[in-house]
């Protein structure tokens, strides 16, 4: 049981640390220290990117855990915490998505979100996301896989969140201001020709994001 309180998982772009959310923080912290100490060369890079999941941490708690990594690992120069998508309690979209297991589990099924995603709401998932509705300006969609919007896309989307450059973004009315795929960011000018096709998809080729019209 104890061994599952903290689980380290090496990923392409860093380390995902899964934290149990049932035990009190103090107990978790002590176990975390032991685990980091025991990990030895696991953190032997000069720079480590970590990402916590499985438990909602306050800034103080997060700071304490990052400090432990710094203290217990000799070789380490820098610890970068990958900003993780925080579930906002006021966003109803989260409930739908969190049923899929969130970022922590190995569940990478596609989730479907029915209805519009409004400004200030965030849908995030450990796989692909299909939005059956609109993504309004100020809304956020973050997926480890592909993102498909069956409506207008005017908000912020990030596909291939953990570094998968094969991911694509598709929308029936593609007019976001900024999109990200993997770690590449593209700004999209708002002055588009009027008779241009609205349905488009974005993908990465040779390290650049390309946007193409789609024949339907």
């Amino acid at each position, binding site marked *: 049981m104890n061994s599952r309180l903290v689980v380290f998982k090496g990923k392409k772009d860093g380390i995902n640390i899964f934290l149990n959310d049932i035990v009190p923080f103090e107990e978790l912290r002590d176990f975390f220290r032991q685990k980091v100490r025991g990990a030895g060369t696991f953190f032997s890079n000069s720079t480590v990117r970590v990402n916590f999941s499985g438990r909602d941490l306050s800034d103080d708690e997060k700071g304490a855990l990052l400090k432990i990594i710094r203290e217990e690992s000799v070789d380490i120069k820098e610890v970068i915490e990958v900003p993780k998508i925080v579930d906002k309690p*006021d966003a109803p979209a989260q409930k739908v998505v969190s049923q899929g297991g969130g970022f922590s589990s190995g569940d990478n099924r596609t989730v479907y979100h029915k209805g519009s995603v409004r400004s*200030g709401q965030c849908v995030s998932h450990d796989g692909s996301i299909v939005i059956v509705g609109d993504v309004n*300006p*100020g809304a956020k969609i973050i997926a480890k896989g592909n993102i498909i919007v069956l409506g207008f896309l005017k908000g912020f989307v990030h596909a291939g969140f953990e570094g998968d450059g094969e991911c694509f973004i598709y929308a029936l009315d593609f007019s976001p201001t900024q999109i990200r795929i993997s770690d590449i960011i593209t700004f999209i000018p708002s002055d588009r020709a009027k008779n241009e096709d609205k349905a488009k998809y974005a993908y990465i080729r040779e390290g650049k994001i390309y946007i193409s019209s789609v024949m339907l």
Partner: protein
Amino acid sequence: MGEVIVITSGKGGVGKTTTSANIGCALALAGKKVALVDADIGLRNLDVVMGLENRIVYDLIDVIEGNCRLKQALIKDKRYPNLHLLPAAQTKDKNAVNPEQMLKLCESLKEDFDYILIDCPAGIEQGFKNAIAGANRAIVVTTPEVSAVRDADRIIGLLEASELRNPQLVLNRIRPEMVKRGDMMSLDDVLDILAIGILGVVPDDESIVISTNKGEPASTVDDSLAGQAFRNISRRIMGEEVPFLDLTSDSGFLKRLKKLFKG
């Protein structure tokens, strides 16, 4: 048993207080018993717009803290016997109230009134949470500006998360001639983004400024176009079918708007 309607917007200055006052007066003129509640504690001005500032003895905080009975704090508007105002406190802030207390207050107002209109403060913090606590229904006010529409969208998301489904929209301060020129967002543009039911469109009208400064809401003045718009909104609130903008028609926006107000 009355109905509690919160009038909110997210962004400040789009006309929440003006809308509350006008709809309140129009409902009262139509014979309904109306209580207007100013939930903007610390920045009260519904009383000023209503021209009732000099009659405040007790306020919302006094009622909640038990310094007076609810009936004592309700200001009866002498011009419209069905209209009552519960003013906000000016010396406290939003944290002086919590959502449970507001809910209780709304429940007791429901017993005596047909409609309880809550004028929500701007923002999404404590004041907003208090204002929506007891509401059964929400009206979102916005102007045809990108910033106001963005905030309205955020507010609609928060309302839906708080189980206040199907909020209705009031598009305030629209200028048909600017929409015609393509310099202002049209009703369709706004509805494209917000995708909620529309309760009414209020044109930008000088008479609103004049009547607000006088403390006589425009919906009580016969020859005001905006006043007519607010009267139509109040009739729709009461469940009447009032002729509305024909969104599919090719005729000019101004014509459609005129058609609406004549109907």
